[in-house]
């Protein structure tokens, strides 16, 4: 018996034919599906995490320029979508104290589409807004600037920065988003 895996991402229902997020599994067993998902989440996840961390540490990150880490994430998102978003979120949390990696992840996110990154991308950027490092907070503000999504104006208005330059930057980005 063929089982179609239907996904509910926020309010949107995707069917398997629309989504590259998953694979068709021929099975009549809930247990088999569960096992497949668990196995996938372990094997593919390990491969992705190891490669991604290496690229985070070895790639050169500059505003406005892409790099191998970004290309890798784009490809992974197109192949594994939903899973990759979760894995990136996990790496971000695990490396909250690692300013370089945190900053690098944000520089990747700012070059990707916020819709493609889903709520995981948003939660990363929002968490970064409260980071103790000014550099990370600056990157987070730039993420929202690049995403050009007015839906996040409220979130940006709810924070304030004690550093004058950062507060000015924040206000400029808010004004820019409000003008869209």
């Amino acid at each position, binding site marked *: 018996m063929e*089982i*179609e*895996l239907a996904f509910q991402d*926020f309010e949107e229902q995707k069917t398997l034919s629309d989504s590259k997020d998953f694979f068709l599994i021929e099975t009549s067993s809930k247990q088999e599906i569960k096992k497949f998902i668990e196995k996938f989440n372990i094997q593919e996840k390990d491969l992705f995490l190891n490669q991604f961390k290496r690229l985070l540490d070895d790639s050169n990150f500059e505003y406005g320029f892409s790099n191998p880490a970004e290309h890798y994430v784009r490809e992974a998102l197109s192949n594994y979508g*939903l899973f990759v978003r*979760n894995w990136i979120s996990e790496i971000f949390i695990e490396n909250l104290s690692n300013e370089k990696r945190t900053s690098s992840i944000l520089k990747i996110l700012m070059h990707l589409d916020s819709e493609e990154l889903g709520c*995981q991308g*948003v939660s990363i950027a929002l968490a970064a*807004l409260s980071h103790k490092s000014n550099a990370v907070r600056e990157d987070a503000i730039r993420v929202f600037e690049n995403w050009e999504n007015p839906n996040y104006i*409220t979130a940006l208005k709810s924070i304030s920065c004690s550093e004058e330059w950062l507060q000015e930057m924040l206000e400029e980005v808010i004004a820019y988003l409000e003008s869209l």
Partner: protein
Amino acid sequence: MEMPQRYQVNFFCDLDEVSPEASLIMKLNEAFKEHSLVSSSFQEFVFDGNTTTTKQRLILTTERKDFVVRFDKNAIIFEQVRHQDFEMPSLDKYLKKVKEVFKIINDNFSIKGKRLSFLFTCLLKEMEKKDLEKTYHKILIPNSYYAKQKPFEWNTRQVALSEYAINKKKEKINVITQINRSQGTLTLATGKKNVDRILYSSDINTNQENMNPRFDLSDFEIFLDKSYNQFVEIKKDFEEILNGD
């Protein structure tokens, strides 16, 4: 030395509408800054008949993910797990944290609990093989075959019904204790280690017959206090049996 593996408290309630939206994430990140908890999301798979659906759910986590608060569809789960590089906090310290975190959650969500539970798992101190075999005879009465052949793996589970007075409510409570001899691999800071030890688990929960939404913050705290005291009493009792002749 005893090695706690997991502490868990569950507050069962309806949470299907709670999702990781931007405004909620911002609010919670600010509210939990002092607890070093960050909002994120996890993927929930629901296997239902012929359809498997997935939904993003909210989670609060520490950086090393040893303390997480998951907002499942039907429960808020407060979980503390052993991290290979860090010592597990004491149980009462964990419960104090759970109460503090839940108070903040309660301030942000209007929720009544349907059911409450408290779980604890630990490996008892390491023993020599002969002492592990003696433990078996203290817990179980084997027949002639197992008395002679000495099992290397065994499980026991006991469930009894108790009653707690929680703010003028009389609640039936399931009190479950499991004592098993188990083999496995532990991941430690020094590397992996094969173990053969006694695993002690406790599960104290409000009886499933009553699933009406009724538990508030005060009820939750009283339940945690009473179940902690009951757990300590039962474990102490078992330890006296296990350590005796």
